[in-house]
């Protein structure tokens, strides 16, 4: 006989205590979704099964106890920390799920300037860790736009990336060690060493698992010296995205690593840069680090750009000011909510990546199809913000008016069809459909196309670590 909702709550209280188990109806409704369904949430519409409880944990032992209980009773568990996910990864697709929230595990365990390591529990907000590091003249180097909101467990679970990734790397380059708890209650710790070749790198089983394999309780990330006094900002307007991609490629192939290397198309650029770049593409760079390196990087970029006569340099202060206002705090989220309700206009993003020789084609193909096939569009465009030796990402930005629909129809009429187009056009040319937001629930239907024959490895991992299928059902791998 399946366990009842009341029994779940009773057992959770037994394990964690009354204070850590929340059953308030409004909290449960809000906990059934994430930003993917924010239009529904704004309108008070909740279409998914409401979880049985939100369980706040304070230790790895408590996580273990809850997971053992859930595993024994086949209860779906959705791990969560900052609640800033964007792809449905936090949606509760099964009846009577437990939302297992680690945000109260918010202690910075150790900052180690000798070994350049920061160890913190999963519920430490990245902003708090960054502020603590800065007091020592250090930085995590990790700066996603959600920095004011996101917490370390979720950032590692989603394989997140930040605005300075071209220099510091993504989270996968920053994580040194971690601790995670698996559905059978096993708590595993991966120690902090500079590198090892003692079998496969098992950190990558955990990094990016999106709560589908385990619950991350503690992470150790690298620290870097913080030298903002040497930052050099460069900005250019130009006519063609193809030229912009070529410049990014040359910068990377020539061996330079600005912390910021971004290319905006005119549509996406209009939202940010209409005060100086109406109808133009915009290229932005920031060089960061020791003075000699930032100067050399800036000089090299200027030389590369000089070979492309369509580029016009922009005043540095404009770029710096734009950059300083990029991140999303609670104030901007609140402002966005009010605007969506007032204008019935909403925007979303779909991030992919691909090699240099196909990225511009993917951009053009996807944008053309979106414009042709999706109604009520107000903006379709994109930007590249994370470059590598062999390619770059593309962040498609798509806004639309919500016309004659119920709130729950927004993702059916607009958002999912747009994602489908982007995924199809990306896969056709060999790119990946997820660069850094994670698969969540809403790209899982294409996961086999994404993985091809390597899906065997992903599936086997899931079977091995979560044989009862209790971890965040529907995330990464679609519901059966």
């Amino acid at each position: 006989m399946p366990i009842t909702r009341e029994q779940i709550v009773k057992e959770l209280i037994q394990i964690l205590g009354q204070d850590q188990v929340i059953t308030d109806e409004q909290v449960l409704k809000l906990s059934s979704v994430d930003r993917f369904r924010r239009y529904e949430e704004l309108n008070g519409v909740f279409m998914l099964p409401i979880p049985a409880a939100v369980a706040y944990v304070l230790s790895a032992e408590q996580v273990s106890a809850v997971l053992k209980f859930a595993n024994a009773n086949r209860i779906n568990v959705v791990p969560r920390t900052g609640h800033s996910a964007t792809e449905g990864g936090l949606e509760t697709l099964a009846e009577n799920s437990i939302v297992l929230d680690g945000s109260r595990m918010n202690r910075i365990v150790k900052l180690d300037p000798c070994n350049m390591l920061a160890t913190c529990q999963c519920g430490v907000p990245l902003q708090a860790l960054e502020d603590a590091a800065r007091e020592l003249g250090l930085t995590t180097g990790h700066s996603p736009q959600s920095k004011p909101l996101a917490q370390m467990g979720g950032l590692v679970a989603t394989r997140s990336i930040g605005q300075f990734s071209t220099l510091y790397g993504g989270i996968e380059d920053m994580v040194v060690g971690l601790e995670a708890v698996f559905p059978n209650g096993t708590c595993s710790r991966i120690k902090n060493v500079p590198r090892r070749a003692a079998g496969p790198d098992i950190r990558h089983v955990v990094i990016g698992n999106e709560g589908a394999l385990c619950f991350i309780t503690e992470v150790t990330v690298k620290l870097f010296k913080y030298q903002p006094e040497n930052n050099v900002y460069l900005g250019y307007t130009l006519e063609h995205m193809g030229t912009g991609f070529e410049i990014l490629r040359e910068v990377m192939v020539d061996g330079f690593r600005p912390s910021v290397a971004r290319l905006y198309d005119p549509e996406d650029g209009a939202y940010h840069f209409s005060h100086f770049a109406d109808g133009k593409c915009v290229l932005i760079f920031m060089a960061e680090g020791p003075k000699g390196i930032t100067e050399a990087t800036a000089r090299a970029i200027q030389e590369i750009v000089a070979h492309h006569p369509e580029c016009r340099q922009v005043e540095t202060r404009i770029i710096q000011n734009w950059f300083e206002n990029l991140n999303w705090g609670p104030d901007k989220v609140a402002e966005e909510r009010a605007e969506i309700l007032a204008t019935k206009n909403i925007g979303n993003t779909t991030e992919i990546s691909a090699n240099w020789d196909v990225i511009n084609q993917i951009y053009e193909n996807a944008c053309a199809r979106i414009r042709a096939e999706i109604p009520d569009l107000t903006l379709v465009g994109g930007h590249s913000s994370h470059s590598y030796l062999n390619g770059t990402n593309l962040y498609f930005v798509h806004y639309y008016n919500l016309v004659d629909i119920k709130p729950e129809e927004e993702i059916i009429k607009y958002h999912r069809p747009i994602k489908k187009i982007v995924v199809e056009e990306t896969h056709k040319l060999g790119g990946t459909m997820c660069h850094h937001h994670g698969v969540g629930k809403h790209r899982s239907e294409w996961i086999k196309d994404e993985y091809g024959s390597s899906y065997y490895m992903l599936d086997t991992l899931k079977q091995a670590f979560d044989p009862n299928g209790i971890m965040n059902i529907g995330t990464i791998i679609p519901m059966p």
Partner: protein
Amino acid sequence: MNVLVCCKIVPDLDRLSESDWLVQDHGQVDTGFVRTMVNPYDESALELTLRLADAAPARMTTLTLGGGQAEPFLKTLRALGFDPTVRIEAQGDWRFCPDGLAALIAAYVQAGHPQDLVVMGRQSADGDNGKTPLLLAEALGWPCITECIGFEAAGPGRLKVTSRVDAGRQIQVVRLPLVLAVGNAAGSTLRVPTLKSRMQAGRQRTEVLEPALGPAIPGFRQDYVLERLTAIRRRRAGRMVTGADGCALAQALYQDGLKQRLENL
């Protein structure tokens, strides 16, 4: 009905950090590097006018004063149905010249562009004068209703206007012509034009005019001097609320903080 909406493109001053507020050599605070936006009260004026036109036929013109930085915004307004979009190419710093501005707008209206209704925000984010609508009404010899938060057609030549007053709201049915100064109208964010409507409006252009009054514009002056800037410090005393558990914390917050405020509402 012919409706003229006057709007101003202003720097987004929220994007300036405290260290950016410096008096430069030219005696000004440099905001040239900051993103620009439609003055928020003017944005409300534009959206409320669109709502008027949704319900009753109206020819909507928009007028702004300034240089080419207004063009992206005027493109958006054309896509929303404002036709014509007019820009008076006036040089100089007009932030603190409400009388000159009112004279320019009145000259536009009186020189062959008759209007039934002129709408604008009550003040701009950078000038903050709060006088232009009233001075314009005086120049035109029209009535002016301030703190307007909504308006709709009420029969031929009449408008039903809602405005905020000390005691609450006032609703008046007034005869046109009229000047409206839009105040804090909740939920009046400007709607967003579709790509299709942008393309359809793509061939239209801004009508760029020289100031009708020539170089000697009454009230226009640039001899003011910025002497100093003083940051306004808004700090409130705070204290940590303590309690054994969530219930105790909530009780402490309610008893010591919220209860008195709620009773005073």
